[in-house]
């Protein structure tokens, strides 16, 4: 199993992000906001629970009919985008 961890900066920021049902994400410390789709919301919520990359991949694999490798690749790409959004407020 892949034990890749969420980047430290994100792991600090993720727990404080407020996500609405519409996918609007707000960082109450930096004031930054952005929006994500339903899948993005699901991913952020998993990461907020402190799941590792492999654990999050396994959870998503239950709901999405894709190979684990594809889910993991997409997850990594999403984390990169998320980091860009979060970094914009740092």
């Amino acid at each position, binding site marked *: 199993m892949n034990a890749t961890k969420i980047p430290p900066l994100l792991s600090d920021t993720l727990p404080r992000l407020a996500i609405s049902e519409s996918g609007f994400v*707000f960082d109450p410390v930096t*004031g930054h906001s952005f929006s994500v789709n339903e899948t993005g919301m699901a991913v952020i919520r998993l990461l907020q629970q402190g799941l590792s990359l492999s654990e999050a991949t396994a959870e998503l694999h239950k709901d999405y009919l894709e190979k684990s490798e594809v889910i993991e690749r997409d997850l990594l790409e999403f984390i990169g985008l998320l980091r860009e959004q979060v970094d914009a407020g740092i």
Partner: protein
Amino acid sequence: MNNIRQPCVAITGMNAKPENPGPGVAVARCLKESAEFCGQIIGLGYDALDPGLYMEQFVDEGYLLPYPSAGEDALLRRLEEIHKISPIDIMIPCLDAELPSFIRLAHKLNSLGIKTVLPDAEQFRLRNKDLLRELAEHAGIECPGIKSISNIGFFNDCDKRGWEFPLVVKGIFYDAYVVHHKDEASSAFRKIAEQWGYPVLVQKFVKGEEYNLTAIGDGNGQLVAPVMMKKMALTDKGKAWAGVSIYDQELLNAAIRLVAAIKWRGPLEMEVIKDGTGQYQLLEINPRFPAWIYLSHGVLRNLPLALLHIAMNESVPTFSDYRTGMLFIRYAEELVVPISVFEDVVMQGSRSNSKEVSEL
């Protein structure tokens, strides 16, 4: 919270040009919209077209003051006249340029029964823009280099002396222009010197996102009811047109250290910018409430109301609740006023609710 009796509060800064509004209308609005406040508001302006003078939903009476250039005696005489018509309990000056006069008059106003919550002259001096770096050190916050200049020739070779463009050219009280080359800098220097006098200030430009904190210093080193905001949209003058409330412990700690260091008394606004490395840089400390103070009411920390408690030596509420993610968006609207009301302001220097603004 303690119940406040029904004070008569005089507030200056009733100007409200959209690109750079004064804070007075927003301060009055905070009080009028507080469930606790049952008092009277007197709006004090310097121009018959200051819109706050006519906003009867927030201001019960409006009066003109002499311009600060007329001197403190003229200001005191005018305040005494107004005080005879409508006895003032508390005075909240809201404009940087008038603060020195109000600080010097504070004792005389107090002897008339008019309370103020203001810093002393030394505290006021310490937050002067040209001394900001020293104060920033106290607060443990970075501060871009700043220099007072009186000669336009500075820009001829400033880049060779560590002052590379872009720079920010600022007035001692108001106005700031980001300039990218010598000609632009010279033009900004002339504009500012003409309007605000000398010295003109030059500050190193920092690219980043702007954040503001407003609060009250209680005079004993404690920071009361801090409210933090990220600017989301700016006017041409760089003022916040939209913003959102935030809570950042790092910014708050800097403000706590700053107020503790100089035992600031009165309202203040701390303007900072977060640079590309995530470091806060102190840009200015304003000795008054900001024009966006109405947000404090929206986040459950009504600062003007807290100021009344301090002025009346009452215990200040703890304000344990605070809302992040509250957005403000400013807008401009027109007031329709009979010419007779405007005539009263021009000819008598006052507007009272006895002549309804909405009466057409």
